[in-house]
């Protein structure tokens, strides 16, 4: 395995972990959505790197998967953002677990 691939694989792992941490720890939903998108990016990076992107044109199947994944991610994010607006309208808060809620 090439050094480039190693670098990007470790990057992917790190970003995924950071994303998970961010998703679980963030208070604001917007941050959580950012974290989810980070996680998505990490997975895409992993797919392409493993698909041989470091050496030359990568495996087209993962590329197609990533493209699909990107569109799905933007769809989900867009809907989540709309829901977030609605949530704030309905509850007056953009935080899922307000400190005084439970």
């Amino acid at each position: 395995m090439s050094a480039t691939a190693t670098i990007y694989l470790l990057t992917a792992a790190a970003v995924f972990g950071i994303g998970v941490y961010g998703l679980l720890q963030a208070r604001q939903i917007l941050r959580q959505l950012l974290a989810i998108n980070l996680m998505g990016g990490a997975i895409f990076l992993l797919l392409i790197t493993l698909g041989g992107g470091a050496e030359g044109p990568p495996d087209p199947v993962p590329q197609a998967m990533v493209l699909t994944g990107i569109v799905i991610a933007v769809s989900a994010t867009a809907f989540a953002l709309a829901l977030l607006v609605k949530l704030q309208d309905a509850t007056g808060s953009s935080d899922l677990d307000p400190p005084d809620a439970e």
Partner: protein
Amino acid sequence: MPSELLIGLIFLPLLGACLTVLPWRWSTRLGVFAGLVSLPVLLVALTLAVIREGAWYYSLGGWTAPLGIRLFVDPLALLMLWMVAIIGGVAAAHAWHDFRPGTPEGARFWPLWLLLTAAMNALFLSADLFNLYVCLELVTLAAIPLIAMAGTATSIRAAMRYLLLALLASLVYLLGVALLYNATGTLDLYLMTQTLAASDGPATSLAFALIAVGLLLKGAVFPLHVWLPNAHASAPGPVSAVLSALVVKTAVYLVYRLWLWTLPAEDPMQGAVELFAVLGAAALIYGGILALLQERLKLVIAYSTVAQLGYLLLVLPLASVTAWQAASYQLLSHGLAKAAMFLAAANILHAVGSDRLADLERLDQRTPLSLFALALGGVSIMGLPPSGGFLAKWLLLEAAWQEGRWLLLFVLVLGSLLAAGYVFRILAAALRRADPTEAEDAEGTSPIGRRQAGYALLLALLALLAGFGAAPILEVIDAGAPAGWSAP
């Protein structure tokens, strides 16, 4: 011909959804009709075909796996498809009143509903891991807005929580798929088996672990069930019904597929089924107790779902024909009964204006039919005879017995007692009279209310009838048992 049936199951609801996006009332009606009413017809033909020919694959676009995407139909998929058709159909009929075509609500509701139907059908038929990811996302993105249609603060918050966790779950699943693709070189569920048997390393096990956690999250398995109760309880009635009866089952279905079909029998990852069983047992008990603690009807039913899902995981380590029958029958009867209960709860909520248990007194006077449906559904959930739930429980116990899993047996029994506890708690609340001397209620049920109750009752009766029709159903199901399970 059978292949076109598969296509129809996915594309008719999909095109129906397109039609319902158009602004005309007739297009909505046509879309719904094409997308839902056609399903049972297709399924009858498909069932006959499956009985005749057994399971088969269908390569989309003519590109066979591993290059292309295959559909796969077998008795298990058929069972799930039937459930989508029946439960989804009846729930849709129930929803017809609240979400009439031509109204703004209807215009928003039906496209999503049809997309959800299409997504579930696609999911149950798909044989491709990445395609399944897309299906899962489609299911999620179609289901969550439906929850939010209730419009209450609780429902929005629940939808948000569901969405975040579902996205997390999807991504975790996707990561697993990514690793698997690289390790095995294919995405096809069934081709993968051979490669998996050869390549055995930490990567594949991590991949399966990731997939498992993703699915457990989507399937609301304890302790990852946290999104479920509020989401299912605050959604509109028909949506709750479909969520609890079908949507969460998608994850369980995939767990079955992966562990019973994809994963080679000797793979060390098979050991995870024990973990699933532990979680299932915990869910059964924890969900049962929490259902007992709830003060609102729909929350009780929702926690009941958490508990009942436990049964489905408990089956995994048993690995016998009986266990297989038990799992299938539990899928079926829980789906029918739970949907009936949610529809009935929706009617009650509508009639009473509240679903707090404390407000439900004299329901036998106020909403007799819905209460009846609720009770019948409850009978099946409790596993009391004569009902499908009873046969499911019987088979489960028998399977546990055959394998000598005493602890499991104990958990099963405890779970069914807890179920009895919460179901009867509901019924007790419904039969209560604050003032026993109170005069009779003169209020009758409106024709609409009666029809709505009728839908709930229909499903409840089906759950009951499932207690009598097991022999032919199981005959078909048996043929679809996973490879390792058919040995007695």
